[in-house]
């Protein structure tokens, strides 16, 4: 019991929560955007991998860290465009296209990585984002180190939650996006082209996914390896359901998952005699339980996964 309290009482654990949550926040917001306009994007796992690779490669080739983030966002947007053209313009199956993009983007990332770094057994490293203590705020006891001594991309992710929450619910563009996910015919009848809106939104969402991937290589770790996304993309897809398609709840979900993850990592080191795989499972099992609890209240965008063709009834 005291072991648990020790873990829960340590500042390091809570500081890790926000760090682990950051790529999930980016990814979840990305999936959320796509689904809000009615398109499932299972390309996320591959797009995150590609973002991780491109971000890393940009910095490795001498670029600035922020240039790396930007490159990851652009790379994500390009894959988003591919997904959009196939699913929105041609109306192909969103599941199949998304999985295809994940397979393609993952392998392509590894391919490019091998071109750039042909030989070497230990992956080369870059100088990652350093924690940036917010002047003043980081001095606050307990909260300071947990919330205000993070890397810059983490602050960006948190800011994006607010921006998206505001954007979706307070701006005309956000309203049009939500309407597109509910009934693209209605949007069209109001003189907005739902197809262009979908394409643009998917690109933006995929850019966020790319940045989530880049966080892994440029802040959480400092090098790239092909399997590093490790299912985080899939977690994001589930978190969006948990979040009931709302940005604020998406943040909550990401934090919850990250909490379980940070917790099990520390449990592994203090509890003996239990196979560590059981601890690894913990966050996933708890996520599934949380998902079941929430999903019953879910109000799915009504037009999710329904292609829209113009000039048809």
């Amino acid at each position, binding site marked *: 019991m005291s072991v648990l309290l020790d873990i829960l009482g340590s500042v390091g654990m809570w500081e890790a929560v926000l760090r682990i949550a950051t790529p999930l926040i980016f990814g979840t917001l990305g999936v959320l955007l796509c689904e809000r306009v009615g398109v499932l994007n299972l390309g996320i796992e591959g797009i995150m991998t590609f973002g991780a690779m491109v971000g890393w490669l940009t910095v490795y080739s001498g670029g600035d860290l922020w240039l790396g983030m930007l490159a990851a966002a652009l790379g994500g947007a390009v894959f988003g465009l591919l997904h959009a053209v196939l699913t929105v313009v041609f109306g192909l199956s969103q599941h199949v296209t998304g999985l295809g993009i994940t397979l393609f983007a993952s392998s392509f990332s590894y391919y490019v990585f091998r071109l750039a770094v042909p030989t070497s057994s230990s992956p080369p490293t870059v100088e990652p984002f350093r924690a940036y203590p917010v002047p003043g705020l980081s001095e606050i006891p307990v909260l300071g180190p947990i919330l205000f001594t993070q890397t810059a991309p983490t602050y960006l992710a948190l800011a994006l939650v607010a921006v998206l929450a505001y954007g979706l619910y307070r*701006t*005309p563009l956000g309203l049009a996006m939500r309407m597109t996910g509910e*009934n693209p015919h209605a*949007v069209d*009848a*109001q*003189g907005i082209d739902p197809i262009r809106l979908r394409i643009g939104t998917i690109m933006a969402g995929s850019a966020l996914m790319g940045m989530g991937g880049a966080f892994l290589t440029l802040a959480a770790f400092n090098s790239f390896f092909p399997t590093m996304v490790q299912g985080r993309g899939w977690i994001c897809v589930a978190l969006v359901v948990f979040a009931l398609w709302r940005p604020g709840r998406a943040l909550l979900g990401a934090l919850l998952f990250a909490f379980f993850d940070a917790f099990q990592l520390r449990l592994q080191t203090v509890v003996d005699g239990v196979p560590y795989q059981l601890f690894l499972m913990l966050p996933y099992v708890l996520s599934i339980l949380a998902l079941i609890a929430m999903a019953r209240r879910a109000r799915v965008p*009504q037009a999710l996964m329904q292609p829209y063709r113009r*000039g048809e*009834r």
Partner: protein
Amino acid sequence: MTRVLELDHITKRFGAVTANEDVSLHLEKGEIVALLGENGAGKTTLMSILFGHYTADEGSVRVKGQALPPGKSRAAIRAGVGMVHQHFALAPNLTVLENVMTGTESLWKLRSDRAAGRAKLMELSQRFGLKVDPEARVADLSVGECQRVEILKALYNDAEVLILDEPTAVLTAQEAESLFATLREMAAKGLSLIFISHKLHEVMSASDRVVVLRRGRVVAERETAETSKEELAELMVGRAVQRPERLPARPGAVLLEAVDVSLGGKGAASLRGVSFRLHAGETLGIIGVSGNGQTTLAGLVSGLYAPDAGALLIKGHAPARYDVPHAIAAGIGRIPEDRNAEGTIGDMSTWENAVLERIWAPEFSSGGMVRRAAARAATEAIIRDYDVRGASVDGRIRLLSGGNMQKLILGRVLTAGPDILIAAQPSRGLDEGAIAGVHERLLEARGRGAGVLLISEDLDEVIGLSDRIRAIVGGRLSPAIPAERADAQLLGLMMAGDWTAAERIEAEGEAK
């Protein structure tokens, strides 16, 4: 008079189907024009072209003298054209205000001005007497209210020309009446309107001028004052139409019996202690304003729901289980109320839709394999026998006009030869000719000994087809009266929940 709208020589083809051929139409300021035509005549297509949803193959659209660029709804909206679609274009999970405001502000504005939007909406709602709650979720509204939202949406965009595609198809008689009162008021205030309807009495009472389309062409244009219902019906169909006569019934054994059934509403009104009997060879009409439990009753009989209390006996036995396969196996056929949601699967082909309900029957599958040739032949027969226009065996059913979809469903049900037929609002959205056809088929089914449970809001239909009539009010059934005793006044009383006269008539019948 100023001409606000001109359609010039519009032609539109969908593959082999010519939906509009050389159609010209104009509209003066403050005028109400009714557009009339059979199912599949091309009315919706024409209006969709005008609104920029479809692009015409030939011809042009001019609003106040200015040509509209083809295929751009935005331009049509800017020019002051508003459209109320046949299938509502609303987002159920959003609020009324959100539905109305979408696309009305510049997309790149950093803040949506809801307060101003709400003020404008409330002002319009007041001015035209269209009551709505701006914060209500559209999914919680009745169809009548959705209709109002659709009209407000158009008015909010400062429409001067308003197009309504079958606005009353899903409204109750009272709702329709108040809608037309509103429309006339709008016209008096300078709006110009085109509305589509299959109901001739509406056309006669609400329009200034009537344009009749047949098979994509304008076949006639009349001043409303100088024409009659009969002439319009004939112009529309190309021949005189008459609804069939009902011969006296020869009721047989009890096929279906509900004993004190109660059933909590499944998203619709609930049933509270419903009892009735349906005999072979008779039609039992259930009349009522929608939302009084009809949907639940239809669902109960077709096996969608099991009763919470009481029993439903089919040919004297309670079914082994209350589900759809058992209901179908017991010989129940259904014509569902909402053909898009419950009657068809839009993206599947006509033949799949035609046989899906009975795909396990040996006719259509054996050893787990679908017998396509047989299924397609059966579909072809339905298309031919039931005059389903515009349908091809492999075409997606979504592309059919509403009325033709209904004919296909009717054909599908009747060719299976059900013992018990449940028909919920069977002629909703159908033209005069098609209604006569549907009625004929329903009478035929009864004539060969099926029991028909007819659920309808239409007085004429219920009186014309039923042998006995009950009203449904708040989930309860009134006593049954013979159709001979029914008139609009008595049925009106029954639908309002005043059953004293009906009870007396039922008692008289039993005393005899």
